[in-house]
């Protein structure tokens, strides 16, 4: 093809022309091989400037345009549009940055600046010569979203997306939605009842016509890419036909087997056939076969006999559900750091040392003590209660390095609620720093010290042990420089928040990144905090990092709006600056597959070659540099282009 490139040198008033001899540049480049037209103008981005480009394309049958002006970040889009208006493919328009990278930074030496401007423009002429005419890649899209995890974050995301008019599949692994928020008593900083604000949302999510709620289900497999995911969901056998069950609860009532209740954090029991808690949604039981007499010995079968609608089915098997979705929101939440890892605090062996979630249950009106704070060992009302912050958190040497963000606040809440419960009790909080970043949070903390006489002790506790029916606390008050010993009736551990135990495994199925500690990685910590790096995946709630409810909900709504933005187009469009493999040259070594951060390359085992999926490739170039056969190229930034550009820049 004959090259007919147009070069347009901008003065930018005196911004460029004051340093670079623009006339000389334009003249000199007119003679450069492949250049059909070269000119200069005062303000290229002005309407007359743009029109100049449009006209020249037509008049001189230009095959490419180099606007030599400011940084492409500023006006690349402007001039690409101008090119397109004259039927020149937008990807055949490039900018040479002779302002930010030249005139503005070399004001002292006009001659050298002019020479450098010429070199810069030459590199772009060489690039444009080989630029392909491309179209943005468009991918068909399924306008349905998958939300994984039915805690407050997942619920909020599902409702927001569904209310915007898109279908949602909400997958929750436990028998009910609600997540940890369902376990909480009252919530800081306003002390409203957690159940009261959560339950309506749980019900809404189960009744929304656009939401398909799949509880007691797990993600089995995910394939495809943004806009076109195929998801296989495992519906775990509940041994109750939950479509038939009317939730009468007779089976639960009559079941003779009891086991420790997960929802009550082991402080109470549940039956082998059970709903996790009274307000569960859906309020239909599942049967826990690991603890059921029938599954152990073939005896019992009471639940089946008593069920008035014959819903109990011991023969039920896991089922698989296939769904097609265009976007996936991950909201799998958190777990508490395992207390067994903290030997110096008894590692879970001291009865009256409880976790923070256990204490929530002791405070909860629907909890095992009916909301009266009673300690587990003997049911007595504890008079001396010690709360420990940063248990496992901020301990890079032995546990996790990060701050769990919410524990300062919830322990303050705990101390406060305890005092509201036991007026003559004494609450102590051992802390390193009290972190109260949030609206109304600091005031909440101040109230705890002012009004509720909570005593804050600055120091980290070294050891807890049992002695004479008390829990001995060996701490320190670094403010007075004294060792402190307290004989406590109850100790509450503000354990670190860690990602849900399934997070890492799930991340492998979804092929999205997790950070060092297993929280899902966001694309950018400040500017893209709710997107995963992999297109089509969005993050919400504590799955992305320790978070309280307001933050979890905000992030859920943000990821929902990202999903809606994606769904606002019929098709999914992306920059075509992707990599491609020359099938004839590929040796099938799979090196590229191992380096691609987006899993964009698939292996065609029939042909024994690798193939890049354009819809997924982000154009990073890692595979290109890694391919031992040098057979991968990037569209409009091929090796050949790079070599020519280098040569042009070095030409005298």
């Amino acid at each position, binding site marked *: 093809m004959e090259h007919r490139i147009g070069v347009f040198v901008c003065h930018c008033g005196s911004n460029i022309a004051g340093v670079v001899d623009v006339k000389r540049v334009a003249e000199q480049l007119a003679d450069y091989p492949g250049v059909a037209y070269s000119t200069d103008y005062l303000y290229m981005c002005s309407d007359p400037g743009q029109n100049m480009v449009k006209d020249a394309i037509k008049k001189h049958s230009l095959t490419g345009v180099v606007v030599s002006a400011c940084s492409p970040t500023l006006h690349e889009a402007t001039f690409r549009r101008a090119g397109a208006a004259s039927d020149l493919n937008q990807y055949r328009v490039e900018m040479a940055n002779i302002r930010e990278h030249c005139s503005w930074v070399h004001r002292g030496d006009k001659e050298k600046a002019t020479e450098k401007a010429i070199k810069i423009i030459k590199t772009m002429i060489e690039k444009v010569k080989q630029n392909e005419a491309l179209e943005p890649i468009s991918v068909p899209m399924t306008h349905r979203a998958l939300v994984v995890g039915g805690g407050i974050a997942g619920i909020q995301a599902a409702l927001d997306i569904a209310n915007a008019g898109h279908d949602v599949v909400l997958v929750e692994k436990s028998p009910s939605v609600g997540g940890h928020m369902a376990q909480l008593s009252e919530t800081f900083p306003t002390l409203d009842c957690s159940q009261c604000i959560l339950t309506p949302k749980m019900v809404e999510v189960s009744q929304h016509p656009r939401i398909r709620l799949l509880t007691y289900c797990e993600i089995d497999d995910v394939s495809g890419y943004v806009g076109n995911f195929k998801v296989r969901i495992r519906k775990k056998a509940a041994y109750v036909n939950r479509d038939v069950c009317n939730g009468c609860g007779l089976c639960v009532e009559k079941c003779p087997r009891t086991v420790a209740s997960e929802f009550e954090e082991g402080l109470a029991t549940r039956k082998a056939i059970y709903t996790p808690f009274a307000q569960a949604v859906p309020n239909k039981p599942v049967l826990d076969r690991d603890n059921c007499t029938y599954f152990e010995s073939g005896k019992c079968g009471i639940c089946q006999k008593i069920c008035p609608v014959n819903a109990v089915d011991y023969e039920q098997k896991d089922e698989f559900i296939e769904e097609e979705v265009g976007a996936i929101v991950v909201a799998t939440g958190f777990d508490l750091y395992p207390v067994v890892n*903290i*030997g*110096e605090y008894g*590692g879970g*062996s001291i009865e009256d040392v409880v976790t923070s979630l256990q204490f929530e249950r002791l405070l909860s009106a629907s909890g095992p003590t009916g909301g009266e704070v009673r300690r587990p060992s003997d049911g007595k009302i504890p008079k001396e209660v010690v709360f420990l912050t940063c248990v496992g958190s901020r301990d890079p040497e032995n546990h996790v390095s990060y701050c769990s963000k919410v524990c300062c606040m919830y322990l303050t809440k705990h101390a406060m609620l305890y005092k509201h419960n036991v007026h003559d009790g004494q609450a102590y909080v051992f802390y390193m720093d009290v972190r109260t970043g949030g609206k109304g949070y600091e005031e909440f903390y101040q109230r705890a010290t002012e009004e509720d006489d909570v005593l804050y002790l600055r120091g980290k506790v070294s*050891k807890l*042990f*049992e*002695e004479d029916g008390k829990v*001995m606390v060996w701490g320190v008050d670094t403010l007075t420089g004294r060792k402190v010993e307290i004989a406590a009736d109850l100790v509450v551990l503000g354990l670190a928040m860690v990602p849900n135990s399934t997070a890492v495994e799930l991340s492998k199925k979804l092929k999205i990144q997790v950070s060092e500690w297993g929280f899902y990685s966001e694309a950018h910590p400040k500017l893209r905090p709710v997107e995963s790096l992999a297109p089509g995946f969005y993050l919400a709630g504590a799955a992305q990092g320790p978070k309280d409810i307001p933050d979890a909900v905000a992030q859920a709504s943000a990821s929902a709006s990202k999903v809606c933005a994606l769904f606002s187009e019929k098709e999914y469009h992306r920059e075509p600056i992707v990599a491609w493999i020359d099938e004839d040259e590929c040796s099938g070594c799979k090196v590229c597959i191992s380096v691609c951060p987006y899993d964009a390359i698939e292996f065609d085992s029939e042909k024994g070659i690798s193939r890049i999926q354009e819809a997924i490739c982000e154009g990073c170039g890692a595979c290109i540099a890694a391919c031992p056969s040098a057979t991968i190229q990037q569209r409009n930034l091929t090796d050949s282009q790079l070599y020519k550009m280098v040569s042009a820049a070095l030409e005298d």
Partner: protein
Amino acid sequence: MKIPYYPGCTLHERALDFDKASRECANVLGVELEELPVWTCCGAVFPLTTDSVMEILAAVRNLAYASRMGDKVVTLCSFCYNVLKRTNKVMREDGERREKVNLFLRADTETRDKIESFLKEDYVGQVDVLHYIEMLRDVVGFDKMAKHVKTRLEGLRVAPYYGCMLLRPHGEMKFDEHPEQPTIFEDFLTALGCDVVDFPMKTECCGGFQIVRDEETAIACSQTVVASAVKRDADLIITTCPLCLYNLDRKQKEMEKRVSGFRKIPVIYFTQLLGIALGIDDEHLDFSDNYVDPRPALAEKNLV
């Protein structure tokens, strides 16, 4: 089976009872503790300053002697174990100090005369340092040990005291999987049939060498440990270290003076207890050095 054995000076002087009981038990279990032909004091404390070379020389020499005899060396005293194990790590990982130490060793003519051959190669951490209890668990096996038990110590409430030196620093000692809640002695005691008394002070310090400088401070420490075991109705405490034994047992004399209503409790070495279970003759199990005589407590359970 022969295993090189480093007794350390205390076991050759003040803690002969420990040495004797341990050798006898090993014999019964089919292990011959082969004492290093030459050895010196290990230095008793591992120097925590990074530039120490002279201070670890003695320990390296002992390790080097041991390396001529086998790939392991067994020791009993917690202090020796700590010093040898940590020194060994220095020799394995700290190239600069290793080089310096070997320079000294090469120049050391006295050593050369005694053990000409080992100097053919530098000492670079060839041996593994093993505590006797680790040997019982990993070489003999607690289950095999249990098979040799003649008298199961049923009903005997024993509090296992670990102290500091076996466990810390955990990253280097790796003596037990759970530094804060170790279980190796519990498993040992269970194999002998004892009732294990779990007491929260089992990993707390007995006062260590401070006993010779500031008796009051050290006794305060050891009393905390003793009282904690007594409170949990232990019949006796076992330990692995002559210094712990000294602080916990001998100093009960002082505790009696200081604390009204103080209840004494016998403290013996773990291999002495093992000896009883294995039915070893009284002549090898000498309790004459103990301040609190363990025999009444043992007699009560018909064990002596």
